[in-house]
C-alpha cells in the first residue's frame, strides 16, 4: 500500500512537472548552461542590430534583463538596416562613436579586432565562470583573437544550410523524397528528372553565395572553401575545389540549373525566391529561411540535409554565427558585458528559441528543443539543420574578398560560361592580392 502510494505520488508529480515543462523547461527542466548575473551598477547603453525581427526579440529579452537583473538600466536599442549597417558602423568607428553593444559577423570581426575597436570579453567570461568551449568551434572560433585565443563575442545564433525541396514537384515526377543519406549522384539524377525545360522549370539552384552556395559543395570534398584557415592562400584553384565547381557547372551546362541572369541576381535570396515562385524544384538555403518559407510558400515542401559527397561520404554545411560584441571604448564596459552575458544566457536566448526563426547559439538541449518545437505545426524537418551542425565548416573569408568570391566567381561560371579553371584563376589572383604575404 505504502509502495502504491509512493508510486502514485511520483506519477502525479511527474504529470504536474510535465505540464510546467514547456514554458519553464529551460529554467527548471535542466540546469542552465549560462546563468545571468545581477549587474553591479545600472547605467545607460546604446545597442545596434540590423534586423527588425531581431530587434523585437532582443528588445523583449532586454526588458527582462532590466526588470530582473539590472533595475534602473537603460538601453537604447536601434536598428541600422542591413543595407547600410557596415558603412554606418565604419563611419561611427571613424568618429570614435561606436555603440556600446552591437551585432558583429564573423567575416567582419577581423577588421574591428585588428584595430582594437572591440572589447575583450574573456576577463568577463572568466569572472562569470563561463566555459567558452560550450559553443562549437564553428560558432566562436572566428571570434577568438590574440595569442591566448580570447573570446571577444558572445554568439547569438547558429545558421546552417540544408536543401529546401518542392514536394509537389517530386510527386509529379514520381520521385521519392530525398533522405539524409542521399549522394551527389542521387541529387543530380533527381534534379535532371525534375527539370522541365519546355515550361522553364529547373531542377536545382545551389551555387549562390558563400554561405548558401558552392562553398558547401567544396567543403564536402574535405577542402576548406575559398581561403584556407590560416588566411594565407586561396583554395579555389585546388583540385578538389575545381572538381566540386565542375560538378555544379555540369548541371548548369545541361540546363538543370538556371544561370544568374535567369534568376535575376547572384544572391541566395534570388535563388530562394526563384524556388518559392516554383521555377526550380530544389534550392540550398539557410535555417534563417524557415520562417519565410513557412509563412509564404504555398506548395508542399520540406528540407533535407545537403547530399553526401560520393567519395568522402560527407555532407558539410557552412556554419555562421552572429555575435554580440562591445565597443573597446564603451564608457560602461562592465555593464555592457553584463548585458551580453544575459543575452547569451539560457534565459536571454529563450526569446530566440520561442521566436521560431533564428536558431539560438546557447547549446542547452532544452533551448535547442524549444527552437525545434517552435516549428511544430509546420511539419518541417527542421532537425536537418541541427544535424548539419555535426559536420560543418566555419567562415574563413573576410570583407575585402566578399564580392569577388561571392558574386564574381558565380557570375563568371554560372552566367558568362567561363570555364571553371579560368574563373578560379582570375578570382584567386584577386583574393591573393588581398591576403597578407
Amino acid at each position, binding site marked *: 500500500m505504502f509502495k502504491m502510494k509512493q508510486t502514485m505520488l511520483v506519477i502525479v508529480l511527474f504529470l504536474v512537472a510535465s505540464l510546467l515543462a514547456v514554458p519553464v523547461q529551460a529554467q527548471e527542466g535542466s540546469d542552465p548552461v549560462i546563468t545571468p548575473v545581477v549587474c553591479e551598477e545600472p547605467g545607460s547603453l546604446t545597442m545596434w542590430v540590423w534586423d527588425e525581427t531581431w530587434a523585437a526579440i532582443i528588445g523583449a529579452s532586454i526588458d527582462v534583463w532590466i526588470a530582473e537583473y539590472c533595475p534602473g538600466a537603460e538601453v537604447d536599442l536601434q536598428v541600422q538596416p542591413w543595407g547600410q549597417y*557596415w558603412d554606418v558602423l565604419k563611419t561611427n568607428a*571613424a568618429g570614435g562613436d561606436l555603440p556600446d553593444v552591437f551585432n558583429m559577423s564573423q567575416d567582419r570581426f577581423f577588421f574591428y579586432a585588428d*584595430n582594437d575597436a572591440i572589447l575583450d570579453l574573456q576577463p568577463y567570461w572568466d569572472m562569470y565562470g563561463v566555459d567558452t568551449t560550450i559553443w562549437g568551434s564553428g560558432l566562436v572560433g572566428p571570434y577568438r583573437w590574440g595569442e591566448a585565443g580570447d573570446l571577444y563575442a558572445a554568439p547569438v545564433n547558429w545558421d546552417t544550410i540544408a536543401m529546401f525541396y518542392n514536394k509537389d514537384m517530386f510527386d509529379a515526377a514520381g520521385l521519392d523524397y530525398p533522405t539524409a543519406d542521399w549522394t551527389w549522384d542521387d541529387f543530380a539524377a533527381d534534379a535532371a528528372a525534375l527539370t522541365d525545360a519546355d515550361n522553364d522549370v529547373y531542377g536545382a539552384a545551389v551555387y549562390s553565395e558563400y554561405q548558401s552556395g558552392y562553398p558547401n559543395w567544396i567543403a564536402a570534398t574535405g577542402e576548406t572553401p575559398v581561403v584556407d584557415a590560416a588566411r594565407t592562400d586561396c583554395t579555389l584553384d585546388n583540385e578538389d575545389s575545381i572538381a566540386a565547381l565542375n560538378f555544379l557547372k555540369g548541371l548548369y551546362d545541361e540546363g538543370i540549373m538556371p544561370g544568374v*541572369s*535567369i534568376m*535575376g541576381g*547572384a544572391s541566395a535570396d534570388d535563388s530562394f525566391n526563384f524556388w518559392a515562385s516554383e521555377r526550380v524544384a530544389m534550392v540550398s538555403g539557410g535555417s534563417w529561411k524557415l520562417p519565410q518559407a513557412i509563412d509564404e510558400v504555398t506548395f508542399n515542401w520540406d528540407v533535407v540535409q545537403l547530399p553526401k559527397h560520393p567519395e568522402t561520404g560527407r555532407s558539410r554545411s557552412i556554419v555562421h554565427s552572429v555575435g554580440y560584441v562591445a565597443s573597446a571604448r564603451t564608457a560602461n564596459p562592465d555593464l555592457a558585458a553584463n548585458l551580453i552575458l544575459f543575452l547569451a544566457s539560457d534565459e536571454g536566448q529563450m526569446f530566440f528559441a520561442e521566436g521560431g526563426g533564428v536558431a539560438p547559439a546557447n547549446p542547452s538541449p532544452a533551448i535547442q528543443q524549444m527552437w525545434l518545437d517552435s516549428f511544430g505545426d509546420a511539419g518541417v524537418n527542421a532537425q536537418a539543420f541541427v544535424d548539419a551542425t555535426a559536420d560543418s565548416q566555419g567562415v574563413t573569408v573576410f570583407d*575585402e574578398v566578399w*564580392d569577388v568570391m561571392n558574386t564574381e566567381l558565380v*557570375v563568371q561560371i554560372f552566367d558568362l560560361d567561363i570555364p571553371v579553371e579560368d574563373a578560379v584563376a582570375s578570382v584567386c589572383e584577386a583574393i591573393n592580392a588581398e591576403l597578407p604575404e
Partner: protein
Amino acid sequence: MTSTLLKFFGPTPLSRRKALWGMALVAPNVLGLFFFFGVPVLMAFITSFREWNAIKPARYVGFDNFERLATDPKFEQALTNTFKLIGLTVPIEMVLALGIAVLLNQPLRGRNWLRMAYFLPVVTSTVAASVVWTSIFQPRYGILSDLLAPVGLGETKWLVDPGLVLIPVGVVAIWQRLGFDMVLFLAGLQAIPGELYEAALIDGANRWQRFRNVTLPMLSPTTFLVVVLAIINGFQIFDQVYVMTLRTVPGGVGGSATTLTYFLYRRAFTNSEFGYASAVALVLFLLVLGVTVVQLVMQRYWVYYESDEG
C-alpha cells in the same frame, strides 16, 4: 580698425544696416556650405596624404597614395570606364535634349504635359529608377529582351557582360539627365528674338538653314552650360552603377562597370583605405577642374555671346 570694418559693410549707416541684414539672411546657407561641404573637402585634401583605416590614428605618408594610384590597374580601369561613359552619354544626351527642346518649343497640343513627362526622371530617385531599369534589362523576363528578340538580341546579358554593362548604366544616366538639359535648352530657345527668324525667312532660309544659322549660334551659350554640366555629371556617375550591379557583381564583372566614384567608394568603405580613397577624390577634383578650364578656354571659338557685339 573699426572704421575699416565699417567701411567694408557700407559707406552710410543705412547701407551698413542693409548689408548686415543681407548677411544675416545668407548666413545659414553659407555656414551650412562651409561646415558640410568646405570642411569635408579640406579634410579629404589632408587625408589624401595619409594612411587611415578610419579606426587607427592616421599616419602621414607624403605622396605614397598618389604613387600607388599611378600604378594601380584598377584605378586605370575606373578612369577608362568613366571616360567611356562620358563619351557615351554626353553627345547622345545633348542631341536628344536639344531635339526634344526644339520639338516642345513648337505650339504642340499638350506640350506642357510632355515637358513635365520628360522632366519627371530628373526628380525621380536615382535608386528607384535604377531598380526599375535593372528589371527592364533583365535578360529573360525583362521588357527589353522581348523588344529586341526580333533582331536577335533577346536574352542579352546587359548587366553582366563586361563588354556591355556600361551601356545600361549610360542609358539610365541619359534618361535621368535628359529633362534637366531640355529645360535649359527650352529657356535658351525662348530667349532667341523672333525677328531673327523673320529676317531669315525674308532672306529665303529654309527650316534647316534657320536652325543651323540662327538657332544653333544663338543657343551656343546655353549649349556651353549644358556641356559643362553634363560632363561634370558624367564624372560623378555612381548610383546607377551601385544599384544596377548590386544584385549580380558589384562594380561589374572584373570591375567592368566601376567608375571613379564607385572605385572611391569601394576603397573607402569596403577596404577601409580612406587615405587612398581621398587621393582618388583629389584626382577626380583636379580632372573635373582641368576639363572645365579647357572648356572655358575653348568656348571663345564656338560660343556666341550677343552682348559682345554690342
